[in-house]
């Protein structure tokens, strides 16, 4: 009935989280940045998994929300002082969710292949919007000169200028997203979207207004993606239209498939593994002149994943959550953990 991760998955998740948390203790700036990117994309991939793996909507334009969030933060941030996270985060989530609702209201009307193409086209529309206009630097991109802080009155509690703080904040966000999505999937709403994925027509016949549920799922997914964009913009403080581009969207899909679609845990593994491979592919000592053309390695990697890894890493590692057979059975006290 509900999405219950098996204990090996939770154990591995804990190992990944601890490993990432320790990076600032042992690693250099570069390692911290890579680890933070891994966390960012883990959040992004989870947001995609809600659509792909649990609602049955293949979005090929999800980076639009990732990038939009980054842009919103840049535009909202004052030029010479730090923006307060307590204000900026709700604004970023709100703007992204709002745009997600507008676009979603249109794209959710379509299905299958149309959905793929239309999500891509809308993302591209937003890409050109930022690329052609002079808002936030146009095609050149723009900087967030002073990183956001979390402040109460005059006291600064969290300062993203410190890379380790940013990483830990991102990690906390990732774990929170994981927990929230599991809660969501176990809720009546979660049951409905999973039903829609398997047989939408039957869900309609059972009396569900499937359009509304798909739209809400789309908006939630956009809001989660905005968290990833928010943190990403703080890593280097630099944003550009490419963040909304179709390549980012494609990479997100690749991470979900690599880790295992419909497992929620898999996309975390997929994001970490994908960025890990990307780092290796840029290592000149390892790949020689191809380091300048590392996308060729990533292309081969993506193709290999599609052809060889049907269930994703999480499936192979036994990390896939299982669908509990029976709602009555799950009422056994202590019978499940989130």
């Amino acid at each position, binding site marked *: 009935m509900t999405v219950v991760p098996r204990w090996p998955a939770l154990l591995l998740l804990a190992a990944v989280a601890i490993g990432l948390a320790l990076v600032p203790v042992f690693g250099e700036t570069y390692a911290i940045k890579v680890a933070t990117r891994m966390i960012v994309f883990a959040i992004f991939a989870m947001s995609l998994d809600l659509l792909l793996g649990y609602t049955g909507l293949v979005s090929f334009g999800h980076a639009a929300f990732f990038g939009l969030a980054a842009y919103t933060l840049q535009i909202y941030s004052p030029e010479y002082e730090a923006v307060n996270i307590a204000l900026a985060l709700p604004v970023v989530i709100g703007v992204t969710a709002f745009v997600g609702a507008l676009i979603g209201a249109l794209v959710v009307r379509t299905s299958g292949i149309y959905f793929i193409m239309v999500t891509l086209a809308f993302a591209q529309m937003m890409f050109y919007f930022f690329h052609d206009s002079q808002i936030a630097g146009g095609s050149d991109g723009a900087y967030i000169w002073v990183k956001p802080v979390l402040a109460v009155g005059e006291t600064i509690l969290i300062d993203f200028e410190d890379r380790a703080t940013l990483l830990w904040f991102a990690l906390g966000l990732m774990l929170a997203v994981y927990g929230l999505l599991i809660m969501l999937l176990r809720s009546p709403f979660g*049951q409905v979207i999973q039903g829609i994925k398997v047989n939408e027509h039957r869900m309609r016949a059972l009396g569900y207004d499937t359009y509304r549920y798909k739209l809400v799922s789309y908006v939630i997914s956009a809001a989660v993606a905005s968290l990833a964009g928010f943190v990403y913009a703080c890593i280097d403080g630099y944003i550009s239209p490419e963040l909304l581009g179709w390549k980012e969207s494609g990479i997100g899909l690749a991470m979900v498939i690599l880790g295992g679609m419909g497992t929620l845990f898999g996309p975390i593994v997929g994001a970490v593994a994908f960025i890990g491979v990307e780092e290796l592919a840029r290592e000149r000592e390892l790949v020689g002149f191809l380091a300048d053309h590392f996308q060729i390695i990533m292309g081969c990697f993506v193709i290999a994943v599609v052809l060889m890894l049907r269930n994703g890493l999480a499936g192979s590692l036994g990390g896939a959550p299982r669908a509990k057979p029976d709602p009555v059975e799950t009422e056994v006290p202590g019978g499940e953990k989130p």
Partner: protein
Amino acid sequence: MSDPVLATRGVSKSFGGLHAVRDVTLDFHTGQVDVVIGPNGAGKTTLINLLSGDLPPSAGRIAFRGRDITTMPPHRISQLGIGRSYQRTNIFPEFTCMRNVWLAAQSRMRSSMRFIRPAHHRKDVAARAERAIDLAGLSHRADTVAATVSHGEQRQLEVAMLLATEPEVLLLDEPLAGMGPEETANIVALINRLKATHCVVLIEHDMDAVFAVADRLTVMVNGTVLETGTPDQIRESQTVREAYLGDEMI
């Protein structure tokens, strides 16, 4: 007789040049099992699809308790209390039987836009689902993945899902096809039990079952209603005899 629960007035459906259903005017009442019979291609399933909102009619009107539902989408028709089962098994194959029925039962929550508490904490839904799966005689398969149970059991699952939505009107499209004799007897008994408080519209080919449950028979041929009447009237009807039943049936 009381006002009909469900009524069609001159309902037609054509696909391109093909007239699947032509000018059908029928009344359906609570406390009565209406069986629609006719050869393959007579338009019986199309008629059910029109009543359930799966297809919009090309012409004519459909009313539920006097309210026009002609152009209503299927989910709203379902919420009004008109439920259907499918001729071609239409389930959630990768879920367990219980989860299939659960989704049907949960559809009667006021709204499923509930995001926080786990679904299985809903005792009302659980009770509804269990009663439905029990009525359909499928309790022993509750925890089995639906794709792996026998064809006959999947047919029972169809019925269980329909019952779990607690409809007033049951549109049953060949529910018995593929069931064994024991299950058939079970479902026939169930229909007879439900009819006191429900309006049942049944499409069926199994003539023994038809005469065991039918209060009224409607014979469809080539998309039109040939005749409507009690089973005895239909048995005696010369028109029906010539057009459809022939000698093989009775």
